[in-house]
């Protein structure tokens, strides 16, 4: 009996020793990775009570650029951000929608583009000065920021030229979190950034739960769309100066169209960004088009014609149904770009209705409306 006890103790001791050694040698093996399902722009790691958020390549053409943020509820340690944060500033209304969805919109103290916010509650807070205007990109209102002393600033960067200003803020004691959600190509990838945000409010479970729910909802709609026989051909945008700028087949909208069971007119055009297409080409292909989406900021069919007076010559023009994503708009805001970011499932549902359920009630659409 005594021998077994000693052997057991020795083995336990040996295991401890081994695992402790491993802990010293390589952090990664003990740090556990919270995997992303769709987003490729960030990574979450846990390490010894800290949360390590990594943002990868947060601007176009960036390579091997990583930003690491260390979060901790005690706030102890070098460059650690104490969570949950109480006061945040945002450089984009999409950031706002993530935070809003998590129920922490009341913590926003400053924002770039306050007149572009759709959410009614937030608008009230903006009107009574609880949320200040921050200014844009290279011309942020630094004084406002310093005065408000937010716990973090959520920023986005389009080109490295904007970095010096952000570095200045870091030096002044305001942690800057660079967010790269706008680069995500998949709608679900964009939405998944809510998990990233949720860590700042120390509510990772909420983020996970939401993500799972939305993913499930989205996939559900996608599945259902497959049951329909028709695959309508869909065209996007309007001509400008005789040229049709339309996104590539890897883009956000193209992905939506595919997932909703439609066929994007320029499925053969690779790439993420918008490209200039000759109107002739569009005209040729227009005869196949069933549905036209996002024709600029217009509200009637006539306004669509007015964008270029050759549009009315498109074959089957009268038969093409036109829908625009400006159902939920304010003076200078459009909810499609705000809450739409966190509810891609609703967007997909809209599109699915538009594509397949011909008798869909206009009221059952969330972001889209038919143009008469």
């Amino acid at each position, binding site marked *: 009996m005594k021998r077994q006890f000693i052997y057991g103790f020795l083995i336990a001791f040996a295991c401890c020793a081994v695992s402790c050694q491993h802990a010293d040698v390589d952090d990664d093996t003990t740090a556990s990775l919270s995997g992303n399902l769709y987003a490729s722009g960030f990574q979450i790691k846990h390490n010894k009570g800290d949360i390590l958020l990594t943002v990868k390549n947060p601007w176009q053409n960036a390579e091997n650029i990583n930003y690491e943020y260390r979060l901790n509820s005690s706030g102890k340690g070098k460059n650690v951000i104490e969570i949950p944060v109480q006061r945040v500033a945002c450089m984009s209304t999409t950031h706002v929608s993530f935070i809003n969805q998590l129920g922490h919109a009341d913590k926003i103290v400053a924002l770039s583009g306050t007149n572009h916010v759709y959410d009614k509650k937030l608008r009230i807070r903006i009107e009574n000065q609880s949320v200040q205007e921050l200014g844009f990109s290279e011309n942020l209102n630094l004084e406002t920021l310093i005065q408000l002393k937010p716990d973090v600033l959520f920023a986005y960067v389009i080109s490295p030229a904007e970095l010096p200003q952000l570095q200045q803020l870091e030096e002044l004691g305001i942690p800057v979190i660079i967010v790269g959600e706008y680069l995500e190509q998949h709608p679900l990838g964009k939405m998944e950034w809510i998990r990233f945000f949720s860590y700042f409010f120390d509510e990772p479970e909420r983020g996970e739960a939401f993500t799972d729910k939305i993913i499930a909802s989205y996939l559900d709609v996608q599945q259902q769309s497959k049951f329909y026989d028709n695959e309508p051909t869909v065209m996007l945008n309007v001509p*400008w100066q*005789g040229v049709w700028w339309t996104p590539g087949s890897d883009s956000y909208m193209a992905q939506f169209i595919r997932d909703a069971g439609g066929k994007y007119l320029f499925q053969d055009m690779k790439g993420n960004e918008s490209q200039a297409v*000759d109107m002739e080409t569009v*005209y*040729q292909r227009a005869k196949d088009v069933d549905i036209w989406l996002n024709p600029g900021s*217009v509200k009637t069919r006539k306004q669509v014609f007015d964008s*270029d*007076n050759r549009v009315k*010559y498109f074959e089957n023009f009268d038969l093409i149904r036109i829908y625009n994503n400006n159902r939920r708009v304010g003076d200078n805001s459009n909810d499609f770009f705000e809450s739409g970011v966190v509810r891609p499932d609703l967007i997909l549902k809209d599109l699915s209705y538009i594509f397949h359920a011909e008798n869909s009630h206009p009221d059952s659409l969330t972001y889209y409306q038919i143009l008469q």
Partner: protein
Amino acid sequence: MTPQNKHIITGSLLVLALLLLAVIDLLTGSVEMQFGDVIRFFTGSTDGAEIWYDSFRLFRIPRVITAILVGAGLSVSGLLMQSLFRNPLAGPYILGISSGASLGVAIAVLGAGAFGVGIMQSGMSELWLVISAAAGSFLIMLLVAVIAIRQQDIMTLLVLGVLIGSAVSAIVGLLQYMSQAGELKLYLLWTMGSLRSVSLQDLNYLIPVIGIGILLAWLISGNLNLLLLGEDAARSLGVRIQLTRFAIFVSVSLLAGGITAFCGPIGFIGIAVPHIVRTVFKSSDHRLLIPWSIIAGAGIMLGADILSNPGGGNIILPINSITALIGIPFVIWLIISKRKSFFQ
């Protein structure tokens, strides 16, 4: 060979070259077309159902006609400005026409940021874009004209035009600053110029405007010749200087203003083509320079249009970049090889 015959032969050759370029441009585009198809279109022996028929009618013909009008109009207005100011660097926009148009368009497209309401909000129709540009040029030209009437010295006008241009750029910069990315891109695209924005319907307006502008220039070509001798000499020969200036003003407003309203500011052609024509034809006689400028300008513009859509593929390059890239080296070469012939 008498100079007369020489002119006739050169002229005919140039017109042939122009026709050739026009045909090539007509055949450039994403839809397949053969030369035979072009013939059949114009002889009326088509049934209108061919694949290329609509594209040709709706997109190519207007584009080619626009290229010719733009090339001719900008060249003639550039020539007028160079002769009026006796300055080789003058161009059609020197009095502030394109600045005015930019201002008008900037307010229409970017205005939302600054004024809370822009035309973009209610749906930017092509008509409003043209009107904004035209209104903007008109206002600036009016301003310049009011000051011009009180000025004897033409150089003051030159400086004024440049200053107004700068002031307008500053205002536009401010509007850009207050705008969103989407609108900014639309404005930027406008500044790059486009020959494709003009439809057959639009041509109903553009053709008379350019036509009248060029006709006016032609009518005063004799006076323009005399202006080259200096205003005093011209006056001593019986030229009515104020009237001539007014006619030049109106002509350039119609030409440069009309083109900018429909196609956006297209640069470089107005400055370069008169130089090319002067150097190649070794003449300062406007009765010759005007027709040569029309042909050369139209030809170069057609060439630029062909190059902007390489191989008729899906890529479309902005016309302003093409006109700058093909033109600048060419003029540098011309000037270097024929040093003395311009102003002493």
